């Protein structure tokens, strides 16, 4: 079998595997639904995710260790991941192949020629990694302050090395060397001393915006599957909605259709993972190359080159995705995959300028601190940023979230939504809860989002921890926010209409929503009595609408008699009213006296000590367009600084 055929089988296998993992990321009882399928495996194989989270958190979370396999193989073999595994790459490869059909050899050579713009991906990589490395750099600078012995050791060691070098006559001007060395150490200590590092140097992981694996998961989870699933009802019984899906879909379509113009456009120009793998593979033991410099110069190898790495001439190793097309298309068999470099020479490093490198580095370093000036992580905290249960405090959360959309796909009630600008640009496409869009609020007995999150931005909590049971009893339940009744919109509060759907649906025990009974005299509800007996009153005129006060919620009271107790109305005609037989009037209201008709209202209140912010009340509120009870992330338990309610004296939350 020819190698490109093997490659195609591998690509199809991983593409199908990827789609399968996306489909099975769904809660349910069916055999194909989430039952230990390693649905995060492709995300875990992605070294950019591993490296990014390592820089931001100085740790490698659980399954992300898989990325080591990719790294090791890339160091040995080159960018095999791009050409053989990456599902996004395979999609581009296929669409690029369709676009190339019917094109002449010359046209193919032109579109598959190396382009200067292919350096853009390296700059993007540098930018994103520097943005992620902020706190690590800050930590390194701060070492001089935190452990003062280190600079001293460094100075002594440095001076010793300089003296040795001077004695060996390896440096001529030892005084100059000492001066440069000491000033560098001085700058280092000075930076740590003068810069308020904790405030200036912050970090967040932005690689997920364009990381191909995160991007393709997001696109399939939030756009393709919801569209297909509405037709194939086995996949999902109800339509799933994702706010801002249009943008995710548009980006996906544009990146896919760009292949018709330039094959593997995304891989060549944008993909930061490709850039990282290109750098890792520069010392690869095996590499593509010509065995003899002179050839017929037919350029068949250049025509089908996926990476645009110019195999016919000086090959660019960092751009080669190991598609192996050149090897099989060379009619003279001059292209090989072997230990020795190409006979026509090779370029191993990325094509980036020193100036561009420094500019990108500095931009990356200031990007996050600049974004933080919007204050969205601090005082300008947005009421719409309600994070899923188990989410870390905002800063740590942003240091881990990949925007892969796995939590949004798995959420059984479809309330986890990709954020727009709610959390600032830094939080774009990160998961926030929207209780209006889905099929309910956050379900009491569900912890799926934390279990699936590949980077522990949402921690894998247990049900006990979520609900504050057993060993977590003293810590209390996880609180997402507090519901607030909007008394200007609430039916009983604002419009004298009974409702309390929110109270009924409140899932905690005891309920966080409770009611206070209130009797309020209805509009035009003071009526003059014509005559009355112990159960029935006749009024002057025809003041009533038939049956209006017969709902069981209306009561009457003799206005002139302060001691008269309320009696429930059971029926009314246009001019008569009947009260419940269980409590007749001993002394019927006299003619010409006034009767007040009152509606019994149960007014909802929220007990902030019990409310966990699950949003079921907000979801169920019959006032639909803007709910009359709404959850805001007030008092959320993921950040102590956001607590609102003082703990009870005998129990700390």
């Amino acid at each position, binding site marked *: 079998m020819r190698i490109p055929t093997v490659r195609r089988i591998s690509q199809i296998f991983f593409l199908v595997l990827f789609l399968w993992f996306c489909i099975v990321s769904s809660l349910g009882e069916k055999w194909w639904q989430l039952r230990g399928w390693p649905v995060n495996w492709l995300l875990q194989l992605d070294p950019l995710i591993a490296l990014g989270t390592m820089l931001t958190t100085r740790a490698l979370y659980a399954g992300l260790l898989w990325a080591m396999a990719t790294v090791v193989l890339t160091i040995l073999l080159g960018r095999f991941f791009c050409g053989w595994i990456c599902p996004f790459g395979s999609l581009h490869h296929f669409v690029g192949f369709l676009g190339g059909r019917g094109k002449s050899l010359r046209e193919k050579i032109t579109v598959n020629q190396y382009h200067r713009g292919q350096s853009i991906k390296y700059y993007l990589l540098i930018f994103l990694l520097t943005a992620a490395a902020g706190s690590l750099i800050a930590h390194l600078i701060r070492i001089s302050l935190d452990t003062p012995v280190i600079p001293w050791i460094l100075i002594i060691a440095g001076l010793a090395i300089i003296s040795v070098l001077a004695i060996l006559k390896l440096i001529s001007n030892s005084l100059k060397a000492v001066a440069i060395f000491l000033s560098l150490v001085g700058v280092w200590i000075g930076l740590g001393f003068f810069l308020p590092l904790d405030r200036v140097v912050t970090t967040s992981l932005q690689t997920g915006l364009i990381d191909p694996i995160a991007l393709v998961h997001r696109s399939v989870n939030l756009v393709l599957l919801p569209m297909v699933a509405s037709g194939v009802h086995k996949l999902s019984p109800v339509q799933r909605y994702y706010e801002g899906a249009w943008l995710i879909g548009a980006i996906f379509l544009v990146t896919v259709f760009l292949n018709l113009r330039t094959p593997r456009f995304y891989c060549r120009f944008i993909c930061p993972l490709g850039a990282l793998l290109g750098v890792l593979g520069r010392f690869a033991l095996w590499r593509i190359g010509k065995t003899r410099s002179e050839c017929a110069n037919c350029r068949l190898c250049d025509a089908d080159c996926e990476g645009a790495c110019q195999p016919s001439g000086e090959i660019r190793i960092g751009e080669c995705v190991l598609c192996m097309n050149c090897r099989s298309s060379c009619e003279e068999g001059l292209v090989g995959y072997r230990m020795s470099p190409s006979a026509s020479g090779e370029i191993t490093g990325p094509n980036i300028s020193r100036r561009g490198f420094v500019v990108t580095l500095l931009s990356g370093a200031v990007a996050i601190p600049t974004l933080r000036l919007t204050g969205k992580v601090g005082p300008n905290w947005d009421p719409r940023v309600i994070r899923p249960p188990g989410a870390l405090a905002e800063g740590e959360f942003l240091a881990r979230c990949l925007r892969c959309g796995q939590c949004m796909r798995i959420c059984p009630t479809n309330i986890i939504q990709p954020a727009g600008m709610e959390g600032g640009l830094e939080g774009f496409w990160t998961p926030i809860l929207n209780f209006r869009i889905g099929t309910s609020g956050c379900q009491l*007995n569900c912890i799926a989002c934390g279990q699936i999150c590949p980077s522990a931005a949402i921690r894998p909590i247990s049900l006990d921890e979520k609900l504050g049971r057993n060993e977590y009893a003293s810590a209390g339940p996880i609180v997402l926010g507090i519901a607030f009744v909007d008394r200007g919109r609430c039916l009983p509060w604002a419009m004298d209409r009974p409702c*309390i759907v929110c*109270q009924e649906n409140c899932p905690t*025990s005891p309920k966080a929503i409770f009611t206070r009974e209130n009797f309020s005299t209805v509009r035009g509800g003071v009526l003059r009595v014509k005559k009355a007996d112990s159960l029935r009153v006749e009024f002057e005129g025809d003041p009533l609408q038939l049956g209006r006060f017969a709902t*069981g919620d209306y009561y009457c009271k003799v206005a002139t008699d302060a001691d008269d107790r309320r009696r429930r109305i059971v029926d009314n005609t246009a001019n008569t009213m009947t009260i419940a037989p269980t409590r007749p009037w001993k002394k019927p209201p006299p003619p010409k006296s006034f009767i007040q008709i009152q509606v019994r209202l149960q007014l909802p209140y929220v007990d902030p000590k019990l409310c966990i912010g699950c949003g079921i009340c907000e979801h169920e509120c019959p006032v639909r367009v803007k709910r009359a009870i709404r959850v805001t992330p007030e008092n959320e338990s993921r950040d102590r600084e956001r607590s609102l309610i003082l703990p009870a004296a005998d129990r700390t939350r």
Partner: protein
Amino acid sequence: MSRREFLLRTIKAGASLAATCSLSYWLYDSTGPDPSQNGDVLVTLPDFSIPGLDGKMSIVTGQDRVGTVDRALKVMGGIELFVKRGDRVLLKVNAAFATPPMLSATTNPQLLAEVARLCFKAGASSVVVTDNPINDPASCFSLTGIAQAAESVGGRVLLPKEGFFKPTTVPDATLIMKWPLLYAPFKDINKVIGIAPVKDHHRSGASMAMKNWYGLLGGRRNIFHQDIHNTIKELAMMVTPTLVILDGTTTMMTNGPTGGSLADLRQTNTMIVSTDQVAADAFGATLLGKTVAQLPYISKAEASGVGTADYELINPIRASTG
């Protein structure tokens, strides 16, 4: 330009003109859309009761639901009286919340499985279990154990889907008009049994057999809370079941209808089977320590001829499983 070219072009232009003109004439609408038009045809549920068997009720005390429901049906003449060979039975459960069966916020799965098993034993050709829950439907049916219980005895669970709802208007009703009803599961059904637990309900006073039909409504049904008693009355008018089974083995005394804690429950060890849903609810009220006067919807339902509020009048058969 040759004559031939001229003629060809004239013919093409003429054809295009004719096509545009006829298309616009065909689609021409001088009045604009008619807002009252609604493509959906109104549906109503047929009467599922069995003639001559109205006003029958049995009340059996005992701790074990399987034992009490068996006994309750037996003293009424056996399930065979209600379910005949070849019948297609729909069991309307209360699966409103995604909570475990232990919390008694939903229909007990063992009770459901036993009723479904008895239906098959009596010769039913199919048993469908359905509800339009409040929480996420799939989670509700699986966490409550209802889905597994139904499937274990060969019943079919139908989760609500958008296409399952058809608008209904309850005859003589003022509230449930042109309202989406979970209609598709009733296709080919000729017997309906409601199975509901006895629960506290802050707005209406109690959620029992009649309130259980609320789970057949779709749309923005929460607005019905503004007039809950008349709504429950109209629900009872909407469904005339073959039987209702009101499970008072464990009663949710407080924090209803969601519950959420064992502290909200009390063992009341009573199973009520009735062809009269009003009488069943009137008796169920006593388990909650409430009177019929405290639950206005019971008298309202009686006044509209659905059943009898004074359950002693229909001489319920009392028994005990010891």
